[in-house]
């Protein structure tokens, strides 16, 4: 089980990094989303893995999983939606303005130098 989670984190991280390094906004956003999953699962796993012991208090139950990482990850998921939305909006605005969705634009000053 631990191997499955750890390797899933690794695969999602690798995929996220690869997509983040692409040249267009959309894959970069997808890459960031993948990285978000990886980070959230990573944080969640810092409470160690427990099957069938949700942190809902019950009479007579002694073992519970660690609730704190869950609470932290819960807000992280919601916040990451807000951030994704902002990034998508920024990317969309840039595309609509310039008809170009590259993320590797060279600053204006430098292009001016290159084109005398």
């Amino acid at each position, binding site marked *: 089980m*631990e191997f*499955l989670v750890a390797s899933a984190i690794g695969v999602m991280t690798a*995929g996220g990094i690869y997509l983040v*390094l*692409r040249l267009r906004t959309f894959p970069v956003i997808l890459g960031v989303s993948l990285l978000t999953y990886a980070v959230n699962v990573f944080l969640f796993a810092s409470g160690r893995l427990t099957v069938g012991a949700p942190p809902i*208090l019950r009479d007579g139950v002694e073992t519970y999983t*660690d609730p704190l990482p869950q609470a932290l990850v819960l*807000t992280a998921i919601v916040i990451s939606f807000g951030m994704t939305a902002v990034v998508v909006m920024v990317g969309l605005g840039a595309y609509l303005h310039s008809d170009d969705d590259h993320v590797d634009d060279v600053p204006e000053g430098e292009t001016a130098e290159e084109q005398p």
Partner: protein
Amino acid sequence: MSLFFIVLLPFLGALLPGVMNSAGRAACAGVTFTVTLLAFVGLLTNLPAVLAGEVVTARVAWMPELGLNVTLMLDGLGFFFAMLILGIGLLIIAYARRYLSRDDNMGEFFTYLLLFQGAMVGIVLSDNILLLLVFWELTSLSSFLLIGYWKHLPEGRQGARMALAVTGMGGLAMIGGMLILGQIVGSYDLSDILDNRDLIQADPLYIPALLLILLGCFTKSAQFPFHFWLPHAMAAPTPVSAYLHSATMVKAGIFLMARMWPVLSGTEAWFAIVTSAGALTMVIGAVIALFKHDLKGLLAFSTVSHLGLITMLLGTGTPFGAMAAVFHILNHATFKAALFMSAGIIDHEAHTRDIRRLGGLRRLMPVTFVIASVAALSMAGIPLLNGFLSKEMMLEEALHTNLFGYAWLVAGMAMVGSLFSAAYSFRLIGHVFLGPVRDDYPAKPHDPGAGLWLPPALLIVPVVVIGVAPFLVEPFVRLVTSAVLRGTAEMTTAHIKIWHGLVPALYMSIAAVLGGLLLLWLYRHVLRGWDALPRPEAKDIFDGVVGGSARLSERLIHGLHNGAFTRYAMVGLLAIFAAGYHAWASGSTGAPTREVQAAGPVPVAGWTMLVAAVLALVVMHRNRFLSLILIGIVGLMVSISFVYLSAPDLAMTQFTVEVVTIILLLLALNFLPNRTPVESTVLRRVRDGGVALIGGLAAFALSWHYLLRDAVATPISEFHLANSYKGGGGTNVVNVILVDFRGFDTYGEIIVLGIAALLIFALTESLLAGPVRRRLLNRAPSQRRAGDMHPMMMVILTRVIMPIVLLVGFYIFLRGHNEPGGGFIAGLVVSIGVVMQYMASGFAWTSSRVRYPYHGVIGAGVLVAGFTGIGSWFVGKPFLTSDFTYVRIPPFDKFELATAALFDLGVFLAVVGAVMLSLESFSRLARRANSEESEYPMDIDPSRERIVPDAPRTGQEG
């Protein structure tokens, strides 16, 4: 008056001139004058105590844990400097009132001036070195504003920047030195430090501390090789120059050397560095001053020279030297301020400060002539004026100083300095005031009104009085000197006298005056020789250094941050890898303590799907719709794994967020191209793949590593589990943590979420207000439109589902405290319910039926949560303290009422508002794109078919 008020008054008063600006120039200057006068009088009320030898203190603990306290101390030395700062300040303010023209913003000027004054007074009254450093930096900043006051002059701006760069850098060095001193002594209080001379001088860190502090003092007081900023600061208005360079700014370094004299002086290092730097500065400043044609430039270099003289005297480390230094500080402040103000008058009246264009002003400006001549003669060291007395003492001290084993070295340099000093003083008188009256002045010079000449005239009074009757000030000078010595050395028995008899110092004085006259007589030839001499221009060197470092950092920054996101990401990733590797390689780990849990077929199947989806996403990411589906699978698998791994709340959140994220991305894809073209080279893809592989392996290794080990300390969640029910009244620990234990975090997060939504709204607004709007309106759809854009099945289904969704949301919200659920999830569920209406019937139809603004919903959520938190104040508890009780209303079972539920309501509202506002903003873009809008909920409506087309019908409910 309490010392606090003396320091605070200028700072508080600094607010007034700006406010009084509209009340007129006189009111502006008047209020500044009054503030300074109040502080001055307040200072004088402490005079009896100071004269009695007491040290007046005032103390308030500010940040005691840092050793930073507002501790003020007034002894003879502090009183002396504060008197100069405030006294000359008064004259400067009166002078500036007449000097500044109508185009100058007087309120701004006086505000800066008062800020500067307060900072200076703060320096000389501080009894805590950290506080002193704060004031020290404040003088650098406020002098920057003053020097650059004439913003339209490039010289002013450059001079201000240079002054700030040099003095600011020195200030940084001094912080280091002061901290070392504080560490050695174990206290940052100046009085403690000054009492620990032996401890400090025996410490191995004494030399570094000394060097750093001297760096601060030398830069501030323009000592060689940092002397170059002062002449460039002359671009400031003359009142500023007169103030900064006679009594204040440059004297701050001198003050600090005098203040630290008891602990720092007396060692070989102090003697060698301070004496030689002072003597060199004295000679270089005096020589350059003689050849300056700008009147203020001449005075600036003469200031440099005189500061060198004082520094040299402090460097000798003898009580007599300290006394001479104190006396010369007083004398220099008086005659130099008078000279600067005279130069300002000449500039003001003749419209030039170029000595070559002046001459013969004696007849045209007799009053100014008298003032400037007396001051200049004092500077030259002519008997019966105060400059003579201190110069005589300096020569006497120099004769007894043996630097580097050469008995004649300091005396010779003092001689040269005095000679040139006399020469430039005579030149000032001779070339500006004497000679024939010319007819080519830029403006016809005449004496100004009393407002301009009275302040310097008042300064001439002490010049003459002290010069004639030195015994009047001698007790005071001795008092200040004993404050400098602080009992570390025997007070000198020498007296300040006009006639000491035929001593070597007198011969040197006579020789200096005669030599000065000779130099002036031969001036034309000497000048030719000087002009032929190759000299390094300090400004060019400074600009070269600044330019070089700017280019270097530019290259570095552009190399790392060239504006391309891919570069940022790559640099960031590599840095993270390096830091992670370092942590991994330098840390230590224990053996695994946890057993690997067996995985059943279901987890393996889920894992396979997740990995396959990620791999497919990477391979097929160019097809954007397909990649959306794939990332949906990844999200789904993550949600399911949360269920499996005992995190029901997380699963519900992840699942609902997944839905809204996909809707959002679909909306975005409506505008973006559907495919990502192949652009990067194979090499680049291989490189990126390599980096991704490293990152993935590292993440895997890290997770694998800690999943097999227990936490090194007991997790704090033990506390949460134990107290969730007892203290928070809920059995769902995750929810109790969110709304209770860590409620403040959650409060911050809903605010962030709200801000993000508002940001999206604002971006949409600005997009739609700009040229993009037309493009959107004229945009041809990139794909074929569906014939049935609002299908009947979907419309009916969403309408039917809506109340159920709301009910589910309500249920999830209510049970959240005890079972999986809560405000976040309920908010997301309800949002999805509403979004479905938009999807089914279109933006226009739905938004005309939604009667509440989403901004308001966000605001209401934040306010509800905030007020819930504030509510606990009324029962005397800290913010967000929760409470709960159980009530029973007969037909129902016993249920719980908790304030945390109210807080959760705020979370719920904020989430609904934020999600809806974001999605609505995106849809607004789309709405502009497709201008044809239906007023009906669905395109094909059997019930509508029978209606006569003419009959107007609106607002058809589905």
